[in-house]
């Protein structure tokens, strides 16, 4: 359980760019046995959404937002020894950000939650051209593909990505999510067969446990 005071302290340090303070807070939470899903959802995701809102409302600069994102990404490394040690269940996923989408933390966290559930989560990173994604899918032969969108103005790129993947793999299950959809726009996803909007990491887990 992450106390509100701890979260506020973390967010303050994150916005001020105080990397080592953020590191110490996360390190302490891990040492106290924090549930990794809670760490991801209630600390990393929550703070990243708040950073996003502050930027959208011009309360912080883009440089500030990038620094906060960079710190968050580096802190994910602290959880990796536990995440990758879980037993494998023989399922694979390819997770990516669409072309022109440079915010990759959300997608990476999805890949990590999949790993935590025993999946082999291949993360392709930011700004992945759809053709490269298709080639990777052909090599890896995943059980599902995940796409992340953080900025709604990139929706056109996401749609193209879905079309390209579905052309070569019409029966591929797609899970789509990201901060871009917080205020709507999920109709785009519903137009495609076997494409599901996943609003949260909890929903993601429920969805893959049914897969």
């Amino acid at each position, binding site marked *: 359980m992450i106390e509100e005071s701890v979260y506020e302290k973390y967010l303050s340090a994150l916005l001020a760019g105080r990397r080592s303070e953020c590191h110490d807070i996360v390190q302490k939470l891990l040492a106290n046995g924090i549930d990794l899903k809670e760490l991801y959802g209630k600390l990393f995701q929550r703070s990243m959404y708040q950073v996003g809102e502050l930027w959208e409302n011009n309360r912080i600069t883009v*440089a500030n937002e*990038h620094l906060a994102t*960079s710190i968050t*990404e*580096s802190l*994910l*490394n602290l959880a*990796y*020894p536990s*995440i*990758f*040690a879980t037993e*494998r269940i023989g399922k694979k996923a390819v997770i990516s950000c669409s072309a022109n989408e*440079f915010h*990759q933390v959300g997608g*990476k966290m999805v890949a990590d939650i999949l*790993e935590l559930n025993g999946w082999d989560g291949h*993360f392709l*990173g*930011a700004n992945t051209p759809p053709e490269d994604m298709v080639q990777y899918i052909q090599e890896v032969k995943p059980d599902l593909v995940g796409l992340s969108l953080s900025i709604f103005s990139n929706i056109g790129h996401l749609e193209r990505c879905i079309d390209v993947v579905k052309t070569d793999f019409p029966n591929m299950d797609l899970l789509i999510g990201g901060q871009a959809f917080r205020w709507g726009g999920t109709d785009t996803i519903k137009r495609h067969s076997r494409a599901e909007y996943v609003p949260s990491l909890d929903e993601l887990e429920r969805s893959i446990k049914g897969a």
Partner: protein
Amino acid sequence: MVEDRIIDRETFGYLKEHAPVLFFVLSEEGRIVDANAYACSLTGRSLVGENLRNIIVDFSGRFDLKAVMGEPSLEPLIHIGTASGLPQSFYFTFKPVSDHILALGRLDAEEIEKTRKEVSALNQELNNLMRELHKKNAQLKRLDEEKNQFLGMAAHDLRKPIGLIITYSEFLMEEAADLLDGEQKGFLNTINSSCTFMKRLVDDFLDVSAIEAGRFDLELQLVNITTILEESLKLNHLQAIKKGIVLQVQAGECTQRMAMDASKIEQAITNLVSNAIEHTQPGTKVNIALACDQQSMTFSVRDRGPGIPPEEMKKLFKPFEKTSAKKTGGEKSTGLGMLITRKIIEAHGGEIWVDSTLGSGTTVYFRLPRKGWEQ
């Protein structure tokens, strides 16, 4: 007008101290008459008296300072050498004022943004690589565990049938000796000795598998080391007699009991003494010594073998690696004995080391600390 009142001495001093741009007052030849705090901090020196050309990094070698100073309408991009060693780019304007020239350099905002994006992208890539590294490490660890499990299972399943072959071949050699001719006895001997070696190999595999899987637990008990040494020498005695080798033992005052895993230390000593016998010329001797003090117990065994070349010493404790030092009786080794011995000693908090001289022989030592091991 406001502008007429702006640049008084105090205001000028304030701007000179705090403005985040490069500001120089230059002579017509480009000599720096005055420089602001930002410029001095960036370059790491006072600058007054130097020519502006001294701090310009000119990659092309064709930069004409005089020409740009004489053209106020230009806004050239000039690279300034900084204290860090890396050049930084500034857009400069030059304005003649009486017999001096004012030079202002502002940062290239696009350049800064570009650099920031590049750093951000590199950081992302680094974090992605870190993720892959953690993932690969976890995969390797799983493969290693599977390998150890397989090794342990295979060795365990082989033990019983090998044991049966040894038992029945020995039985036949004893009970049916009268019924067998020389050739058939030879066959049985070969079966027995080959299976005995296989059993040793399987036992060593099981030990290594247990060590690698972290199942190497010590059963500590208070024992007298001389008792363990005596038991070990009983096991090696026959081997030594067959080769006409004398085991010369020098045991110091080691009466105090120490906590150790008796069977494992016996295994270590037996292995080292057996190795020494195998490498020693028949008709000579093997020296065994035991010394104890308040802090530790030191065991050593010296053979009269060919010695080990210095460049091969690193092979000694590696699995399946063998040195060129040949065994004098043609004996076979599993290649795992020294590795297992070292693991036993290190599990007790001790250390093992080897001295060897070509043509003279090899001495293997191990030391076990007394402190912390006694109850």
